[in-house]
């Protein structure tokens, strides 16, 4: 057991990350240790990143322990960079966090300056005074650079780039150029930039969720007007409730048809809130509500009926699909679409209904006079059964499935389905890719099953297994 991370007090008494827990306990018996949880850390970082969306739309994660904000054109809204930094550190302190902030012209430079503070009169000098570790090379290269007497970024920058690339690789030069601002790498914001974004700030934090929802409704109406001006409707909506302690609470809904009516939207948001396992916790109050529409689609204005001005009755199931998908989860309401494969379990794909609005049509059965050749229910994976057959490569005689014995009275087959040998590397099939011999069987009580023998007797398998793959109606 080793120490992964330490707080300021522990660092002050000389403990270091990487030390064994036993050594640390020997030095400080009152040490309180907790298990490291990378997922929880990541989750927390993501929540903080969502909270930082109040400062700039371009907020991204800088794992494992950093956040990167692109504040170009945003700082003046907060009264300058210093005021912005004060606001950020004030909020994080209220959430019990300590942060080191750094401003720089490039993301890499800001990253390095936050981790290796180098007091200097200006940014360029500060970057040149950074240690070579700031380049984020592998540890061996950093040690080699130090052995060569190159301790700072400035030392490296004074050398010809070709020699550096020859010794430490192209990436060392790239890292150096990015740090010096000669090359740039685009930032990947955690949330894509939304087409429409509406904010409402409160002078005082609001403790009531109902009031925050009422404000959201106002924003929804405003967003609807903006969408109507563009002749568009939204397919995805995201509400963010910013808490005064720096965290943000996201609420997302999705629709299968573009919408812009505030009432429809609010119904979906309420549905989403009802389905949450914990209610929304306002904490010390919300100080900002944001509604963004990340995904829009064209939506022409609809014509009212002439007489009486009544609209048509709702002739579509889209609102039902949206509501149910919002409440129970989008993966639970599905449509099935065909796929071109002869492997039975790959011949269809179940997609969320909210995504696939106009499902692909299925080919009708080519010979409708015949009974169904494919089952109504498919087991994926197939279920193993015990089969008695008169000869090993013959049809089934009786079989046992789920502890019940079925006597086969009628059968048809085999229908032989070969594995996808053209996909196998150098023609050799994997152990589980074998020819299947399918039989349509009916038992004494009239139940119809689809079973198969896995592997050709003798050539592919010494004792081919049998599986139940589907049930006919």
């Amino acid at each position: 057991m080793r120490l992964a991370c330490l707080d300021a007090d522990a660092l002050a008494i000389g403990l270091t990350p990487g030390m064994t827990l036993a050594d640390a306990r020997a030095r400080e018996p009152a040490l309180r240790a907790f298990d490291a949880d990378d997922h929880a850390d990541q989750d927390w970082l993501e929540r903080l990143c969502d909270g930082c969306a109040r400062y700039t739309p371009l907020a991204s994660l800088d794992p494992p322990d950093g956040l990167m904000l692109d504040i170009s054109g945003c700082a003046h809204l907060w009264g300058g960079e210093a005021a912005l930094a004060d606001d950020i550190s004030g909020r994080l302190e209220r959430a019990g966090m300590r942060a080191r902030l750094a401003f720089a012209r490039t993301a890499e430079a800001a990253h390095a300056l936050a981790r290796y503070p180098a007091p200097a009169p200006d940014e360029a000098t500060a970057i040149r005074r950074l240690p070579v570790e700031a380049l984020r090379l592998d540890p061996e290269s950093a040690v080699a650079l130090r052995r060569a007497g190159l301790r700072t970024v400035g030392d490296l920058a004074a050398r010809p780039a070709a020699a550096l690339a020859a010794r430490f690789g192209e990436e060392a030069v790239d890292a150096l150029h990015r740090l010096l601002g000669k090359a740039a790498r685009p930032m990947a914001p955690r949330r894509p930039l939304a087409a429409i974004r509406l904010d409402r700030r409160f002078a005082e934090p609001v403790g009531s969720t109902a009031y925050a929802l009422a404000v959201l409704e106002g924003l929804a109406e405003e967003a609807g007007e903006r969408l109507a001006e563009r002749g568009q409707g939204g397919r995805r909506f995201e509400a963010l409730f910013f808490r005064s302690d720096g965290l943000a609470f996201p609420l997302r809904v999705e629709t299968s048809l573009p919408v812009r009516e505030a009432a429809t939207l609010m119904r979906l948001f309420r549905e989403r809130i009802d389905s949450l396992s914990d209610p929304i916790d306002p904490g010390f109050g919300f100080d900002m509500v944001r509604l963004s529409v990340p995904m829009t689609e064209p939506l022409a204005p609809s014509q009212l009926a002439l007489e009486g001005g009544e609209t048509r009755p709702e002739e579509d199931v889209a609102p039902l699909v949206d509501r149910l998908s919002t409440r129970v989860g989008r993966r639970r309401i599905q449509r099935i679409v065909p796929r071109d494969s002869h492997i039975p379990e790959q011949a269809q794909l179940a997609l969320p209904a909210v995504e696939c609005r106009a499902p692909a049509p299925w080919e009708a059965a080519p010979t409708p006079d015949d009974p169904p050749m494919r089952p109504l229910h498919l087991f994926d994976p197939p279920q193993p059964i015990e089969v008695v057959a008169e000869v090993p490569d013959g049809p089934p005689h009786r079989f046992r499935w789920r502890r019940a014995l079925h006597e086969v009275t009628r059968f048809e087959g085999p229908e032989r389905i070969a594995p996808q040998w053209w996909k196998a590397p150098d023609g050799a099939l994997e152990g589980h890719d074998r020819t299947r011999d399918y039989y349509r069987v009916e038992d004494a009580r009239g139940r119809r099953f689809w079973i198969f023998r896995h592997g050709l007797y003798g050539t592919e398998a010494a004792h081919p297994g049998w599986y139940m793959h589907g049930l006919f109606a």
Partner: protein
Amino acid sequence: MRESSTSLAALRRTIAALDRSRPEGDAARFATGHPGLDAAMGGGLARGRLHELFAEPEEAGAGAGMSLLLGWRAAGEGQAPLFWLRSQGSARMGGAPYGPGLAALGIAPDRLLIGTLADSAALLQAALDALRCPALGAVVIETRGPQPLIDLTASRRLALAAEASGVTALMLRIGDAPAPSAAETRWRVAAAPSAPLPGDAPGHSAFDLRLLRRRAGPDGMGWRMEWQAHRGAFGEWNGGRDDLGREGGAQPTTLSGAVVSVPAARPAAGRAA
């Protein structure tokens, strides 16, 4: 006496106004296509009502097939989608709905919406929401195992929603015992031996359907019927097509099935479906 008769008539009118379940006369019915059943039921099953189908766990395939086919008949020719709501338990035990198989039965899979709900409370809530949507053709609600939540109140709620929207509700209860409910009819479904094809191959899907209870009218009858996909309707089960005159349950005399010639077009055609 006359006074009492007028007040009785007034009372009847008041009750008729209160009772929303019987608007006027008989609701529209959809025919199954099976002559015997349609004649006994006065033209088919009532549209916009709740019908219950019970099936043993071993008959899950037949039960689901019957409910979907009845739902398909109720949805009719238009584009109205069929909504199949299942519980997680059904999906785990009964297998996933299979598009090619649905298409082979004549049910267009692109008109089918499938919902898999975590528990029976969510299932009932979703069923209620679905039944309130008049754009749907029919709703099939599939449960598995005993469902204490589906009591008289819950089924009454579903029946009222179905009446208000005119969407037919078919509740398939697998492995459950009939309990008092507000359903219009109650059936027991089981698979029946099919009329065999030449070569003793299993034929068209056949069902045994028994009418357990009916709100208005006699019950207790049973029919054996066959789904004829080319007609898109149920038909008379014709076991007599079997030349050997063999009833289901009898052993085939020989098991030389491996040499039976399967029409060359069929398996390949099934593959393309």
